[in-house]
């Protein structure tokens, strides 16, 4: 089996964040943004938002729990990077920390990955730890599973999440199941990641939302990142998890820029993120739709509404604790997702909330999803298949009138 080697430095750095709670160790709470002078906090996402309206549009606000860490982190300036760089930073830190961590996928080596997430890693760690594979998704996923069962911690990159449909057999029948069917004798600590979601005219086959198809597989965990901060944190947490984790990235979010802490941190795989506390309605979303929701939130605030926005982040299992607390407070729920209407994350979330918090709802849950159509190539048609901020505003208004 693979040898275990722990760098002392890394272990020491981690001990300070052992009790790390994603909601505590935060730089950019709403308070500290207005306090900080001179540091610019810009969230750029292909022109949908512009800089300047920063004070309202905080994408990674601290949760409602004790606001203790804001002051202590204000002393460290952090560093700015793009989301794909944040993913790479997380990956690199884990590869430094644990020699068992390796990457495999198409063009991840010298090419650096189609979205540059693995850029520079092959020269640093060698061809064996950053492995270019032939084009056979089911097979290199199977390979990762075999390597994991023999002691490595592989990260499989799907060039596009949609290609992982070819790996469904290995993911479902083996990745999710072998720990169970072997009676716990073999663990499969793999991370399967890649870009998914609807991009800019990538065509139907490259615009898949795989979280819908994978959510039923027992034995796996699913998380979706949406900011550079949580991208790095979730990547690190996923690598350290003993369970197989699927990390969903979004094609259009790779160039988001954010300032993240210099110190090491990880995010909790099973926690949702409070983006904007509010009183009138709970809006649940994840990945790219978070930004459409926050765009709509601006409009809603101007109209006098106070929406609570939660980025659910953990797609399997749902963080029903955070979600439940919100529902108990606001009594109205709107789900905004990119999945198609049938069998998407929204459908499961609706069922879960209805089952558990039925008594707290003043109105039926509304779920805004994409239509049950393959994503068209034509740009205008593609835009119609995605939930837009205006729809979100309308839905909130309707829900709040009930």
């Amino acid at each position: 089996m693979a040898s275990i080697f722990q760098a002392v430095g890394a272990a020491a750095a981690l001990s300070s964040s052992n009790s790390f709670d994603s909601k505590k160790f935060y730089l950019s709470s709403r308070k500290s943004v207005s306090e900080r002078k001179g540091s610019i906090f810009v969230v750029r996402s292909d022109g949908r938002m512009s800089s300047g309206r920063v004070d309202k549009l905080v994408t990674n606000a601290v949760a409602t729990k004790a606001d203790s860490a804001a002051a202590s982190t204000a002393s460290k300036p952090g560093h700015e990077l793009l989301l794909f760089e944040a993913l790479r930073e997380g990956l690199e830190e884990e590869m430094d920390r644990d020699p068992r961590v390796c990457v495999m996928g198409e063009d991840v080596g010298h090419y650096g990955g189609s979205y540059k997430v693995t850029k520079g890693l092959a020269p640093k760690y060698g061809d064996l730890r950053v492995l270019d594979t032939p084009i056979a998704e089911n097979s290199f996923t199977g390979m990762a599973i075999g390597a994991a069962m023999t002691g490595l911690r592989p990260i499989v990159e799907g060039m596009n999440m949609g290609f992982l449909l070819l790996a469904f057999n290995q993911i479902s029948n083996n990745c999710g199941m072998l720990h169970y069917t072997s009676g716990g004798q073999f663990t499969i600590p793999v991370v399967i990641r890649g870009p998914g979601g609807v991009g800019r005219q990538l065509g139907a086959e490259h615009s898949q939302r795989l979280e819908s198809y994978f959510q039923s597989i027992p034995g796996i965990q699913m998380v979706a990142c949406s900011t550079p901060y949580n991208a790095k944190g979730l990547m690190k947490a996923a690598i350290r998890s003993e369970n197989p984790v699927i990390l969903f990235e979004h094609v259009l979010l790779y160039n988001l820029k954010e300032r993240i802490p210099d110190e090491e941190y990880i995010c909790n795989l099973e926690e949702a993120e409070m983006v904007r506390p509010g009183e009138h309605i709970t809006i649940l979303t994840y990945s790219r739709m978070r930004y459409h929701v926050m765009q709509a939130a601006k409009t809603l605030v101007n109209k006098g509404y106070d929406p609570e926005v939660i980025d659910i982040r953990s797609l399997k299992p749902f963080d029903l604790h955070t979600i439940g607390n919100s529902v108990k407070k606001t009594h109205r729920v709107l789900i905004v997702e990119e999945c198609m209407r049938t069998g998407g994350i929204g459908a499961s979330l609706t069922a879960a909330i209805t089952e558990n918090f039925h008594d707290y709802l003043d109105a039926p849950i509304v779920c805004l999803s994409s239509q049950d159509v393959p994503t068209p190539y034509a740009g205008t048609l593609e835009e119609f298949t995605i939930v837009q901020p205006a729809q979100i505003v309308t839905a909130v208004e309707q829900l709040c009138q009930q």
Partner: protein
Amino acid sequence: MFQSLDFPGGRVAFTSEMSFIAESSEKRVKCYRVLDDNGHPMSSRFEQISKEVAVKMYSSMVTLQIMDTIFYEAQRQGRLSIYMTSNGEEAINIASAAALSPDDVVLPQYREPGVLLWRGFTLQEFTNQCFGNKADYGKGRQMPIHYGSNRLNYFTVSSPIATQLPQAVGAAYSLKMDRRDACVVTYFGDGGSSEGDFHASLNFAAVMEAPVVFICRNNWWAISTPTSEQFRSDGIVVRGQAYGVRSIRVDGNDALAVYGAIHAAREMAIREHRPILVEALTYRVGHHSTSDDSTRYRPADEIQHWKISRNPLARFRKWIKRNGWLNDEDESELRGNVRKQLLHAIQLAERTEKPPLEDLFTDVYDHLPSNLQEQERLLRETIEKHPQDYPADVPV
């Protein structure tokens, strides 16, 4: 004028003669064999084995044969839900296992329990898994014959065909990173060679220079599909070259040939960091499983021919007896003992408690998440309210 092209992979010479490579050679690839049908070595040049190893091999083959017979009967009596025999493939099972080291990682398909047997899995352990009781290492979660043992480096059997092949490449990749003096050995059948995973695994293994020995049990039948309907190539051995993998065809019913070929393959795989493909020709004497009746799709005399005239145990026995290493009394005693042990193991396994209810939910993840805790609670409540609707022998 002589011309050639510099192309990745080496110089390619041009020719002005248009000719197609034939779909198959005139002569089929030869099959390596040591013992003839009467157990006589055909040449003196073969990998010698000691008396201890030979007797252990033969005893294991006998044990495997008896285990198959008894478990098959147990299924017929309704004591097991399903069983799959390895009738006719005892030599492949045992001789290949004997040629490996305990550090070699084995990824089986499902017709290779002999490898586990050789490595020390006890009859009781086999029985416990088949009966899915508390002592089963799989905690009662898998079908019978889906054995697994991380202690013995034998990956748990997973039903889908050929999924273990790319996993084998991954395991070899892991061994290579650790620079271990060990290889990976993976088994599959003629049917499994049609799966996409077979193709990609050979390709990956070659590109990655991974130390994997791919062993194909070409036993002629994939449930009811004969090899003539499975592929049109000369078996599986010829495919090796298509992927840049060294390969050999061996008589799967000749224990000494299998032993020698696997031993050599293993050395090459480890020393030279390369995959090797071994095609062992054999015959699936038994039905595919207890849910199959193969007399419906193949002639009874064909089965009989391979069962009797080409029996791997018979041939090996002749060679061992001629060496004076085994006599009839020893064999009867062995058979009697094994039979007794198995019947005892079955009785014990049937009396052993089933795994507790909580094992329905554990090991899905490393820790029990809240949704599964909730589901377990609901199930327990339901069982408490309606105990008569639930099995009484599952501890709650």
